[in-house]
């Protein structure tokens, strides 16, 4: 199975039309530090769930596993691999 890439998730984030500080963008930076709010994150995670047909647990979000694009990519690939 082809792995999800940082570009894939960055594209999803861009499609959400969020006002992010792309000048200081780094895949390891928390999206909230770039200007995303809690509803933006909900929208991004919904789009990820829909695109990859996965379920993201509330507990995993609360544990801080979905804050940056790098984290998101790692989590998605782990879920897809376990499928």
């Amino acid at each position, binding site marked *: 199975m082809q792995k999800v890439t940082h570009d894939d998730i960055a594209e999803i984030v861009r499609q959400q039309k969020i006002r992010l500080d792309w000048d200081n963008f780094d895949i390891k930076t928390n999206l909230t530090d770039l200007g995303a*709010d*809690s*509803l933006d994150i*909900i*929208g991004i*995670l*919904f789009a990820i*769930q829909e695109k990859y047909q996965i379920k993201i647990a*509330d507990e995993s*979000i609360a544990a801080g596993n979905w804050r940056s694009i790098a984290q998101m990519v790692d989590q998605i690939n782990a879920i897809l691999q376990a499928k």
Partner: protein
Amino acid sequence: MIGITNIGIHIAPETVNTVEQADAFGVSRSFIEEKIGITAVSRKKGAMRASALCVAAYQDLVSGGSEAAVEGIDFVCVCTQNGDYRLPQTSAIVQHKLGLPSTCAAFDIALGCSGYVYALHVVMSFMESCGLHKGLLFTADPYSEIIDPKDKNTALIFGDGASVTLMTEDPVLSIGKGAFATHGDMHDSLIKRENKSLSMNGRSIFNFSMLHVPPVVNDCLTANGIKRENVDLFLFHQASRYVVDNLCQRIGLDPQKTPFVVKNYGNTVSSSIPIALKNYLKDSAFRTVLICGFGVGLSIASSLLRRT
């Protein structure tokens, strides 16, 4: 056929400015203004219970000298999940407070955000099957009684309000076919447990709304044999601007036809649709209105209203 003849509303006059609370809740002012879209939430006086809100909505209905229009009421229905008491039914208290005759039928419907749409169909069917002529359908869910004012998931969203819909055989709007859905597996996403405040999982409600509301809207359009471009107005439950805007975009609706009107008083649960609908009731430019309530349950109900 029984349908909607008039609507009275009550929005609790006292408000809490949500924008001023941005710092306390750790969110930005723009988040409240642009994303949630609710800059003030209405708050009833503490002593006012659901029945008092219903009476205030009734007073709006009969204001302007239309008292005669409500003579001969033979049915009262109250849609609420926060009635005056666990028992008796709030509709009996409202019947008493309005001085309606003992021959009046009365019962409650315990539904939340989908309640108005469900109740329209229940009331219409009940009245027609029982030969009743003039009914009052109230909605009143004073969430200020059950929310924690320090909980940003709910305190920045819910307001207190009520509505009454006069339903007669001479309606302004007829009620078409309904479409409904229930996702009981998600019931704990919006729940009031014993001795606890209301708990809402915002992410779960958003996911539910985006996944499950659009198919019900499409089912409603199909059931009523109408294309979306021929509907003049889509009145969604006024959950938050973020939810309504995303639904509009996801279903592919014209934003001009999908208003969000609760900026100054908040999400009034089962009252959000009738309070919004009142704005369009007398405007003949709006000939077809699709209404869709969704939330507590988790439950969805949609129907098509046509000007007669």
